[in-house]
């Protein structure tokens, strides 16, 4: 693995290897001394062209727990706002002595471009590019699912995929890099995916995706799913006529109290997942977010472990 750009690039073996290493990383983070010496002397740059607190902190924690040095570069207040190109910014970081670049960028494909050009020649981790992909989010979602299922079944998660699991991804699929990364990874790991959204928030062309598509959240819940991944609905969508108003969105596609009650009544063990940050009361009710089904905080914890595994595999030279 030279870069981590898209979950579509991962084979099943590679994906499972990352998850297995992440298990070990998570184990280590429960010890009193959380730090591992694996990347001592290496420098990881977090190159963030978009506001993001959670993902940046998660990557920062991951790199630091592996004893790497971390440089945080955010577009705000940097020379990017003065019109510096991605190429110049990246080459500046190379000159400073970076060993790997974790990049978040508002343009789909910017990390792939950084990896494909001769600009820097460093390992690139895509930390979210436009509406394209967010592979470490999908990996941490898969990790969380796998761990929860193993817990439920009383087995070990190691070496396993997500075979036969039914997962519904609900919400703004059109603009979601999380949805795309999850689509490919869940398929690779053997899960069945259903995308649930209003038709306006599904991409034209999604018909060719390896998943089912539904406009009816109640029907999908009633059909029985192992996990509901609720996606954040961004404020600007409401002004762009994707749906009439937030109330109507919640009524049809939100995981509200009524749907939570329906889940509880059915006896299903459905997990409730959300990549955060949540809009409580819009795509997810407070009761749903705080219910025992919710894995939201677990996802955050697992995110660090998965990012440790990703950085470790890219930088330790331990290629799979």
């Amino acid at each position, binding site marked *: 693995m030279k870069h981590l750009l898209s979950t579509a690039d991962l084979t099943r073996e590679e994906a499972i290897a990352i998850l297995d290493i992440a298990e070990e990383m998570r184990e280590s983070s429960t010890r009193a001394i959380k730090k591992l010496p694996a990347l001592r002397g290496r420098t990881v740059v977090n190159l963030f062209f978009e506001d993001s607190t959670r993902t940046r902190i998660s990557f920062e924690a991951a790199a630091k727990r592996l004893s790497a040095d971390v440089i945080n570069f955010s577009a705000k207040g940097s020379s990017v706002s003065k019109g510096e*190109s991605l190429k110049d910014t990246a080459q500046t970081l190379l000159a400073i002595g970076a060993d790997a670049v974790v990049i978040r*960028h508002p343009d789909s494909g*910017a990390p792939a471009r950084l990896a494909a050009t001769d600009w820097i020649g460093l390992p690139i981790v895509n930390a979210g590019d*436009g509406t394209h992909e967010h592979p470490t989010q999908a990996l941490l979602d898969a990790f969380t699912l796998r761990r929860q299922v193993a817990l439920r079944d009383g087995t070990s998660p190691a070496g396993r995929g997500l075979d036969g699991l039914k997962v519904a991804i609900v919400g703004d699929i059109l603009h979601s*890099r999380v949805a795309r990364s999850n689509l490919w990874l869940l398929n690779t790991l053997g899960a069945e995916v259903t995308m649930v959204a209003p038709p306006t928030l599904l*991409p*034209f*062309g*999604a018909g060719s995706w390896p998943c089912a598509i539904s406009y009816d959240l109640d029907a999908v819940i009633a059909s029985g799913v192992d996990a509901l991944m609720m996606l954040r609905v961004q404020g600007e969508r409401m002004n762009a006529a994707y749906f009439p108003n937030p109330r109507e969105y919640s009524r049809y596609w939100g995981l509200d109290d009524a749907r939570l009650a329906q889940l509880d009544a059915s006896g299903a063990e459905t997990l409730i997942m959300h990549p955060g940050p949540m809009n409580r009361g819009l795509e997810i009710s407070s009761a749903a977010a705080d219910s025992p089904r919710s894995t939201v905080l677990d996802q955050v914890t697992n995110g660090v472990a998965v990012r440790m595994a990703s950085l470790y595999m890219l930088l330790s030279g331990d290629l799979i």
Partner: protein
Amino acid sequence: MNYLIQQASILGGEPVDVLIADGKIAQLGSIAAAGDAQVIDARNLVLLPGLVDTHTHLREPGREDAETVETGSQAAARGGYTAVHAMANSTPVADTAGVVEQVYELGRKAGWVDVRPVGAVTVGLAGKQLSEIGAMADSRAQVKMFSDDGICVWDPLLMRRALEYVKAFDGVIAQHAQEPRLTEGAQMNEGEVSAILGMPGWPAVAEESIIARDVLLAEHVGARLHVCHVSTAGSVEIIRWAKARGIQVTAEVTPHHLLLTDEKVRTYDPVFKVNPPLRREEDVMALRAGVADGTIDVIGTDHAPHPSEAKDCEWGAAAMGMTGLETALSIVQHTLVDTGLMGWAGVARITSQVPAQIGRVADQGRPIAIGEPANLVLVDPAARWIVDPAAMATKGRNSPFAGMELPGSVRATFFHGHATVLDGQLATPRTANA
């Protein structure tokens, strides 16, 4: 200099000798070498009328870092062209007689091809007010084609008025068909690939809805409409329908839309970023069929050179457009001739005769006959070459065909009897008073 072209295959026919003297075709047939005429061995070469581009961006005035009239017209000569239509989106915009005369003069002084300026339909391409179409038509530049290319004349009433108004000057409106609201932020064709790549899509319907509206407007007011860079199968169908109704519409396709698809965008290499975007394989095939059956009239390169920094960046920050003048004939051969869809007479029709008619360009796109102006190109259809943007005459290095092996090479170009290209290399310009 006079030239005796020996054993050239005119439009792919039987070999004959062609004598070029004093800028005209002086003799055809079996001609003995005599006196001062330079002999050119044209065995196995095809002789075509000099190519006429309906759609070129020469960037001057304003963006001389991207291209100048000089370098752009050198690229044109290298590609076998003897005339190009220079689009109006320069800085300042070609919306006055002053600017079109400047471009025309720069072309005349450069001496590589006829540079025919296109006038803007609206002042500053702003889509609000008609530019001085009459003044441009009556200027030394003799503008006949008007276009806001790069931007759609979106306002239906303004488009109607433009179509009506140019009738007074035997002009034509060349429309960049792109519904603006449907393409806000668009980065590539809207389809299966854009869904995977997470890129804002440019749907086919945004082109087709404008073409449908415009052919109906052209019918209603009895005016000439030219549709720039048709890119979708649906557009071909609408134009086919319009022609069957007798509407005065002509249509253009670019070489890149005849070959490349949106699959190329998976690389996220902005050299493939263009407007209208690369479409699906089905569209490519429908466009080729449309050219073959006459629905699409002409090849227009939409040659759009950019400085390297405009492409050496991430996709979203990159400029739209690709170079095309020096690869056009090869792509036409590759996609239309070598596939059996048309012969060389057809190539002459779509690259020279009809483009000259649309732009009302005198002395271009003429038959290869005695007494006609010697605007000619000699092509070696058996040659194969690897596209190297660094070796091109254009300043633009943004060729989407870089590294591809293509058939057909331009051996010589004659511009009013003057060899602008000889032995496949740029020769000399024709001096303005020659």
